[in-house]
């Protein structure tokens, strides 16, 4: 039986990798992957707690998160594609339209 | 060329009048039959009159862009039907009671105490009728003037009509606020899209002014909500006595919204810009109805909800009104723009209205309400008239006009009647309103009554000056009047002339509507003030 702490530790590590990846990488595809990493880290902890507390709600939530993540990835990639078509870049330093 | 012009203009009106008079019986018959029919059947009058134009407005957006004529005709039909549907209000209204009539109450969001609650009494009923009537004229006067984005234009007008009527009928603060704000949006679009050269500035200014005022009112509404056992019901609020300090705060919060709309001095500067830049229909709605919502707000909410505060603040209101009267009138003398002059004259005239209202006596308030109707008719008519001549000359500069009476005699006669009504000549509606207001104002505060009278002198000065510059003297070679009013324009102005004279000679027709309701309002103020005095005395004794 793997203790709960291990799951939490793994989840935290994956989440931090996701956060750092999102913050330091400039490639949008990598950033999207980082977001997926964060989401899955959360999923992991949810399942772990669900099992630990013997409450199925956590797992149901995980299914929701997976669904949303899929949709998010689809929309994110779609935006990315149209962005690439218009600008021919996938690098965030080149995309500063929102500069005030 | 000049003589050719004249002879053409001399012959033409004869035919116009003759042909137009053929339409009149048909229209009268149509309205009459419609009225009979609509009185016969039972239907929720107010909901129909509000939502027919609103839904119709959205439907017009769906008409394909190329069918411009269809958009025009649909909106004309809808406004006509709305007018006929509103006629039962006039016919079936019970003048002997101060209670709300034609009420419709449904629970809407019960958890928050919000109801869908409509009703009219003697104070509001006339505004509903005025709105439905003026909307028709707004449609007809824009018939050829608007050539771009036609369906959006007429859709906006219908949306405005519905929400305006909603403002006058709502008996639930939440609903009221929705209508109050809702009509800003189409109005903003109307000014901003179809307006004059400086339209964007004017539209934003109009929007911001009214929004700032409205937000303070929103805060006031929420505060009063908590003081009324969490209910937005206006009738319930009217029976609630708020603590005096709360009354004062709320009075000023509501004042912010209403004073901007009226507009009272010193928050009037949006009005000249908005009026000047708006398209004709926009100016008519602004002058005819929108600015009445402010004064109506005072009557419907500020005074009955916070009677003691209203009584205590009445002197300030009266002084502000008198300043507006004189200020607005004097500033008119310096105007060079046709619409701007009429806009500033509105400031002066609305000063009379607020003076009458805060005189807080029978003559003052009745005069105030009547004068609101009058101002709606007369200033609305003046803007319609200006729109008609603007369509020909494409200039608003007074200096570019002159001698229009020679080229357009029928038009000149119309304008003369409206000018006379505007300066309050006996026999026109303006006289009755101003007379009652000044009498009421004089009874309330003699000095202010006297000062307000000076506004009438200056009023005659600027309106006659305007009339002379535009219509008299030799024909200005720079102005191309083309032809006198055509049938459509004639029929647009005719009902207003009839109203001007009808109210002038038989004002009781309207005064009798409001008598009981106004009496109820005055009783409310006096009784509450009495209670307040008693309370004060008790406190002193303690």
């Amino acid at each position, binding site marked *: 039986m793997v203790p709960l702490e291990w799951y939490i530790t793994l989840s935290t590590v994956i989440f931090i990798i996701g956060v750092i990846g999102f913050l330091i990488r400039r490639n949008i595809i990598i950033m999207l992957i980082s977001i997926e990493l964060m989401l899955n880290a959360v999923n992991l902890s949810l399942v772990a707690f669900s099992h630990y507390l013997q409450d199925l709600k956590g797992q149901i939530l995980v299914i929701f998160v997976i669904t949303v993540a899929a949709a998010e990835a689809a929309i994110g990639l779609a935006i990315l594609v149209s962005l690439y078509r218009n600008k021919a870049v996938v690098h965030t330093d080149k995309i500063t339209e929102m500069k005030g | 060329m000049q003589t050719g012009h004249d002879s053409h203009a001399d012959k033409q009106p004869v035919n116009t009048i003759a042909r137009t008079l053929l339409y009149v019986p048909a229209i009268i018959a149509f309205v009459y039959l419609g009225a009979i029919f609509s009185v016969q059947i039972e239907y929720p009058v107010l909901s129909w009159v509000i939502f027919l134009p609103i839904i119709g407005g959205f439907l017009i957006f769906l008409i394909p862009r190329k069918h411009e004529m269809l958009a025009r005709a649909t909106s004309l039909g809808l406004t006509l039907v709305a007018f006929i549907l509103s006629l039962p209000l006039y016919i079936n209204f019970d003048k002997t009671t101060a209670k709300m009539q034609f009420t419709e109450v449904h629970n809407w969001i019960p958890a928050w105490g919000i109801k869908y609650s409509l009703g009219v009494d003697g104070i509001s009923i006339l505004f509903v009728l005025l709105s439905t009537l003026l909307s028709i004229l707004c449609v007809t006067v824009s018939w050829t003037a608007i050539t771009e984005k036609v369906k959006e234009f007429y859709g906006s007008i219908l949306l405005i009509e519905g929400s305006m009527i909603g403002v006058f009928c709502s008996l639930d603060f939440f609903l009221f606020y929705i209508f109050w704000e809702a009509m800003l949006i189409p109005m903003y679009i109307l000014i901003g899209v179809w307006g004059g050269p400086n339209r964007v500035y004017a539209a934003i200014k109009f929007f911001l002014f009214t929004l700032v005022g409205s937000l303070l009112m929103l805060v006031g509404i929420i505060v009063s909500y908590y003081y009324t056992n969490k209910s937005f019901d206006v009738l319930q609020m009217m029976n609630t006595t708020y603590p005096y300090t709360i009354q004062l705060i709320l009075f000023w919060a509501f004042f912010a919204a209403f004073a901007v709309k009226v507009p009272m001095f010193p928050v009037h500067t949006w009005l000249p810009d908005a009026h000047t830049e708006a398209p004709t229909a926009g100016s008519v709605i602004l002058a005819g109805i929108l600015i009445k919502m402010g004064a109506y707000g005072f009557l419907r909410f500020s005074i009955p909800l916070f009677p003691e505060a209203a009584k205590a603040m009445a002197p300030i209101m009266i002084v502000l009104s008198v300043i507006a009267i004189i200020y607005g009138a004097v500033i008119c003398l310096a105007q060079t723009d046709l619409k701007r002059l009429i806009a500033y004259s509105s400031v002066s005239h609305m000063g009379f209205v607020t003076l009458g209202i805060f005189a807080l006596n029978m003559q003052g308030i009745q005069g105030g309400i009547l004068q609101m109707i009058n101002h709606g008719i007369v200033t609305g008519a003046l803007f319609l008239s200006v729109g008609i001549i603007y369509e020909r000359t494409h200039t608003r500069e007074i200096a570019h006009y002159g001698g229009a009476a020679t080229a357009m005699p029928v038009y000149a006669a119309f304008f003369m009647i409206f000018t006379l009504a505007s300066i309050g000549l006996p026999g026109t509606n303006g006289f009755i309103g101003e007379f009652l207001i000044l*009498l009421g104002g004089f009874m309330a505060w003699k000095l202010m009554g006297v000062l307000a009278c000076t506004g009438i002198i200056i009023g005659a000065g600027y309106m006659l000056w305007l009339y002379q510059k535009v219509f008299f003297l030799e024909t200005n070679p720079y102005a191309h009047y083309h032809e006198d009013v055509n049938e459509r324009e004639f029929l647009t102005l005719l009902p207003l002339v009839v109203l001007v004279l009808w109210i002038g000679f038989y004002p009781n027709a309207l005064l009798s509507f409001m008598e009981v309701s106004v009496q109820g309002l005055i009783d409310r103020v006096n009784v509450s003030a009495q209670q307040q005095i008693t309370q004060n005395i008790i406190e002193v004794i303690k």
Partner: protein
Amino acid sequence: MTMEKYVLIPLLPLIGFCINIWFGRFYQEKAHWISILAVLGSFILSVITFIEVLQGKVINYDLYSWVISGNFKVSIGFLIDQLTAIMLIVVTSVSLLVHIYSVGYMHGDSGYYRFFSYLNLFTFSMLMLVTGNNLMQLYFGWEAVGLCSYFLIGYYFRKQSAADAGKKAFIVNRFGDFGFGIGVFMVFIYLETLHYTDIFANIHTLQGQTINILGFEIGLVTLIALLLFCGAIGKSAQLPLHVWLADAMEGPTPVSALIHAATMVTAGVFLVARFNPLFSMSETAMMVVALTGAITSLFAATIALVQNDIKRIIAYSTVSQLGYMFLACGVGAYGAGIFHLFTHAYFKALLFLGAGSVMHAMAGQLDIQKMGGLRKYMPITFWTFMIASVSIAGIPGLAGFFSKDEILWLAYNAGTVGRIVWVIGTIVAGLTAFYSFRIVFLTFFGKFKGTHEEEHHLHESPSSMTVPLMILAVGAISAGWVGIPPLLGGTNMIGHFLEPVLGHPHVHGTHAEEWMVIAISVVVALGGIFTAAVMYLWAPGIPQLLGRTFRSIYTVLWNKYYVDELYDYTIVRPTKWIGSRILVGVTDGKIIEGIVNGVPKLIAEFGERFRKLQTGFLQHYAMGMAFGLFVILSLVLIFVKQ
């Protein structure tokens, strides 16, 4: 109901107006038929009514409720008593004659139907004014006649001066109405009614009440009387609001005869006479009325001495004669005032219409210095004009003599103020005779001073113009015979007729004194005529000599005492200056707009600084979010635990 009849008196002209203004275009040249028939109907009904009143009937009833607001209740109604009956006769008869005269005078004018519809509208308004049984209806007629006056003065609206004159008349009258309106309010506030019968029944309750105005205690009666008198000053062109009447001569001449001589301008006198119970209660008010009248009559008569425009001279003469009527009212001789109003209507209308006839022949020429010798070209006009002049000058036997003499005699009897105004009145009588005959001599005698072409054009006017002249001439001779004083063998019928309404003043002078007053006024009048004859017939050099010798006086008179200029510099210009410079320029322009546009500008500047935070780099935002999350989490961890 028999009452229907009285409604028709004002209603007929209104119907005529409505028909002509709407349909006049279709039958241009025949518009006068409808108008004349309408006024003729009113005239006949007025005569019938007059006979009924003569038999002692007083008609007072309400037609319908006009305005009801709380305790404020006013009806449209009719009060026809002796005073109104006389006014009805004056208004409808002069109006009828002027209508007929206009058929010839306005012939061929492009706005022919418009002119007649305005005349009808005016007749309606004036009849509403005199028949009303309450103050508000009086006010209705009051403003409505002002409006018609505005229309008709500015009838030739393409002319700048005509348009200006109309506007001026309207606005100057508004100044008077300002006081009048407040007077009406005061009446309502203190008596709670505007109906004459109720006012006069309760008026004694005002006696002794005072009101505090800026620290002065003023008698309520005096105040109300003076406020109402303000309206009369405006409408009847008394000092200081007389400025509009001379300019009003821009209108067509029949209008001047009807509105600015015979009827509308006498409305002020009618008002004072109608409110005689009120005025009689206040000595101060009476004194003000008498002195205003006397000073105005002198003032206007002096101006009339030097003017050259024939219509302006007659206009100033009207102002002067109206002053006479007020003078009479002010000394309590209301009956004499109305009597003078009655006679004046005929001889003054005749003077104007005669002047119109002259203008018609002279192709619009107004300068009497350019006329002369017209006697032989237009005999009817000459003789009728002569009769009117003799009448106004106060030569015994004609209308003007009896009414003027009645006024002077009653003034003589009315204490100190009365003596003062009597002296002024007598002087004015002399001046009146002088300037009236100055016109006669310069216009009809001597040699023609115009161009040859003009001389060729001279002709007598058509019969539609001369017949009214002759009828009016009969009036100018005989109108005074209804008021021959007992001293001269008459019974002063009109005085007794009006007594129920206007009362009768106390007379305590002796017959010898009355003879003296008559003698003095006749001598003065003859002296005036004689002087005019000397100066303009026998020694034409004298006027120029006088003009040069008394240069400054002449200039002041010629410029009408510079009153117009005074108003221009003290009222018109400052108001416009405030409007354009202060209100548009400073208050609205700088202060309010400054605040209004300043606040958004401030917010915009604020935003200008803060937008720098928006770098556009996605990672910066993400960093911000992460950092924010860190801060919030830390705070939660720190505080929630404890």
